[in-house]
C-alpha cells in the first residue's frame, strides 16, 4: 500500500481536509448534489452567488453548448440572502458541509449588506469563508464588472472585509478578461482579501446559425468548461509569479476553470493553486469533485509527494534553479 498523503490545506485560516470544492453556480446549494454524494466529504461546498434580493434570473434560452464547454446566461437566479441563510445555509450545516459562501451585489454597498446579513445568520458557524464574486459576466454592465477595475474591486473587498469577523477569510473571485490580472489581484489584497479565486467564466457569445441571432436570451454569456482550462492555468501562473517576485503579497489561490480530471487539477496546483473547484464537469459527472480529489491524490502519490501543499506552485522556477 502506498504511503498516505496529507491532502489537508489551510487557506488563510480556512482549514480543510482536502483541497476539492464545488464551484459557485455549478452545484446549486447542496440538496441536489447530495443525491449523488455526501457533500461533507468535500473540502468545502461553494454556494451559488447570492445577492440581497430574490432574483428570477434571465429568460431562456440560457445556455449554449460549445466545444469542451458551454456558455451560460443565467442572471444570478437565487433566493436573496435572507432566504438563503434561513433555508439553504441551515440545510448545508445540517448536512455537515464546510461552506464557502459566494456573494455579490449591484453596488459595493450591496456586497457589504449581503455580508452583514450572512454574519448575523443562525447557521453562520457552518461558514468557513466568503467568496466575493466581483467578476460575474452576467450582469448589466457586462464586460465592465468590478473585477475589471482595481479601484472598484478594492472598494468592494474593503467593505466586505470590514463587515465580516476576522476569522472568516475573504476570497476575491477574479475575471480573466483583464489586461493585467496581477494588478487586480494586488488591489484586492491591499484592500484586505485573504485569498483569491481564479478564474470566473470568460465573456463569450454564440450565434444560432438557423435563426441568425444570438443563441442565448442574454446575448452574451460566460464561457466555462475544459475549453477555458489553459486560461485558468495562465491566470494562476501570472498571479503566483507576481507573488514569487514580490510584486504583490503572498495569499492562497483557489484554482477554478475547466477542471475535469485529477491531472487537470494538478496543472492548476502546479501553477500555484492551493485548492481546486470543479464546476462545469459536475454537469457531466455529478460526483466529479470527489472523483477529482481521488485522482489528484493518486497522481501526487505516484509522483512521491508526502503533502498536497508541497505541489502548490511547483512548476514555477525554484530559487536554486535560477
Amino acid at each position, binding site marked *: 500500500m502506498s504511503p498516505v498523503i496529507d491532502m489537508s490545506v489551510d487557506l488563510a485560516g480556512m482549514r480543510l481536509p482536502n483541497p476539492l470544492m464545488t464551484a459557485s453556480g455549478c452545484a446549486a446549494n447542496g440538496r441536489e448534489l447530495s443525491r449523488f454524494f455526501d457533500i461533507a466529504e468535500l473540502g468545502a461546498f461553494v454556494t451559488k452567488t447570492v*445577492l440581497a434580493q430574490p432574483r428570477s434570473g434571465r429568460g431562456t434560452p440560457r445556455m449554449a453548448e460549445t466545444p469542451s464547454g458551454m456558455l451560460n446566461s443565467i442572471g444570478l437566479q437565487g433566493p436573496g440572502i435572507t432566504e438563503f441563510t434561513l433555508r439553504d445555509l441551515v440545510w448545508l450545516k445540517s448536512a455537515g458541509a464546510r461552506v464557502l459562501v459566494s456573494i455579490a451585489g449591484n453596488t459595493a454597498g450591496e456586497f457589504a449588506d449581503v455580508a452583514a446579513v450572512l454574519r448575523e445568520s443562525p447557521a453562520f458557524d457552518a461558514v468557513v469563508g466568503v467568496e466575493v464574486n466581483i467578476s460575474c459576466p452576467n450582469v448589466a454592465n457586462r464586460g465592465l464588472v468590478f473585477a475589471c477595475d482595481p479601484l472598484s474591486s478594492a472598494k468592494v473587498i474593503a467593505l466586505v472585509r470590514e463587515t465580516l469577523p476576522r476569522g472568516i477569510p475573504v476570497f476575491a473571485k477574479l475575471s480573466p478578461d483583464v489586461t493585467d490580472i496581477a494588478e487586480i489581484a494586488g488591489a484586492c489584497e491591499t484592500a484586505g482579501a485573504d485569498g483569491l479565486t481564479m478564474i470566473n467564466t470568460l465573456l463569450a457569445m454564440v450565434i444560432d446559425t438557423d435563426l441568425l441571432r444570438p443563441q442565448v436570451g442574454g446575448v452574451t454569456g460566460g464561457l466555462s468548461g475544459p475549453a477555458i482550462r489553459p486560461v485558468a492555468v495562465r491566470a494562476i501562473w501570472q498571479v503566483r509569479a507576481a507573488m514569487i517576485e514580490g510584486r504583490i503579497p503572498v495569499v492562497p489561490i483557489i484554482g477554478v476553470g475547466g477542471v475535469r480530471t485529477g491531472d487537470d487539477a494538478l496543472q492548476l496546483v502546479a501553477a500555484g493553486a492551493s485548492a481546486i473547484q470543479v464546476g462545469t464537469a459536475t454537469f457531466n459527472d455529478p460526483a466529479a469533485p470527489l472523483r477529482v480529489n481521488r485522482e489528484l491524490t493518486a497522481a501526487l502519490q505516484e509522483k512521491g509527494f508526502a503533502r498536497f501543499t508541497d505541489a502548490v506552485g511547483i512548476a514555477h522556477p525554484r530559487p536554486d534553479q535560477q
Partner: protein
Amino acid sequence: MRPATRERVPQVCGELVANRRVGAYHQLTFVAAEVAALARPGQFVALAVGGDTSATLLRRCFSIHKVSPGETNGDTVEIVVAAKGPGTAWLTDLRTPAEVSIIGPLGRGFPLPTEPVPCVLVGGGYGSAPLFWLAEVLRERGCHVELVLGAATRDQLFGVGQARRAADGVTVTTDDGSMGTKGWVSLVLPDVIRRSRADVVYGCGPMSMLRAVTEIAATEGAVAQVAVEESMACGIGVCMTCVMPVTGRDGVTRMARSCVEGPVFRGDRIRWEAFDDGRCQVPGDAYGAQAMVGH
C-alpha cells in the same frame, strides 16, 4: 417547489443491448436495473455522450419509454432518440455491445388519478415515447385510455402500432395527411375528450402543442398534465438553464427548473404567454423579476 426526494439517484454504466430504427427515430435499450427499479412514467434519464474524453460535456436527457424485466442481465430501460445533433447522432450510431453512463430516473413523473377516470394521452412526434407505459399504468388502475398521436408526417409518428395495444382508442393526425386525420392534434382533441368524457389530459411533445393541449383541456373541463421540453445542461437541478415560469399553489410565479420541479407540470400553471419565437421571457410579476430591472 423543492425536489421531491433527497434519496440517492443512481448513476450507472448502462449496457446497450438493442438499437433499433423505428421510423425517423432510434429505440435504444439499456440494461440498467437500478434505474428501472425506481422509474415511473414521465421521468427521464440523462445520458453522457461521446465517451469518457468527449468534448461534448453536457448530458442528453430522454424521457423513459419503458422499463422491462431483463432476460438474463437485469432489467432494462428504453429511450427513443431523434438524431438532431452530434450528441444524439453519437447515440443512434452506437452498436451493441456498448456502454453509456446513465443517470436516473430524474424529475417528477405524471401524477396518477386516485379514481379510475377516463384519460386522454396526447403525444407529438416522439414525445409520445413515455405515453404507452403511462397508458398501461392507467389501465391497470381501471382508467379508460384514449391516445392521440400527431406528427408532421407518417414517418415522424412514434408508436402507432403499440398504441393500439396500449389504449382503448387511438386517433392519429399528420400535418400532411400521410396517416390519419390531416392537421394538428388540436383539431381532433376536443372531440376525443368529449367522446371519452375525459377528466385528465396528459401531453408530451413540443411546447406549442402542450399549450394547445392545455387550452383545449381547460375548455373541455379537464385537467392537463404536460411533460415539458426545455434544453438542459445538467438534468439534476444544479445548472438553472431549464427554467420556465410556473405558478405555484401560492399563486406566485417562479422560474422553475423543469428537471427537478418538472418535467411534468399542470398545464394551467405554466405561463404560456411568456413563450414566443423560441424564447421565454420572465413575466414582470414573477418572483425576483423586480431585481432584474435594469439588468
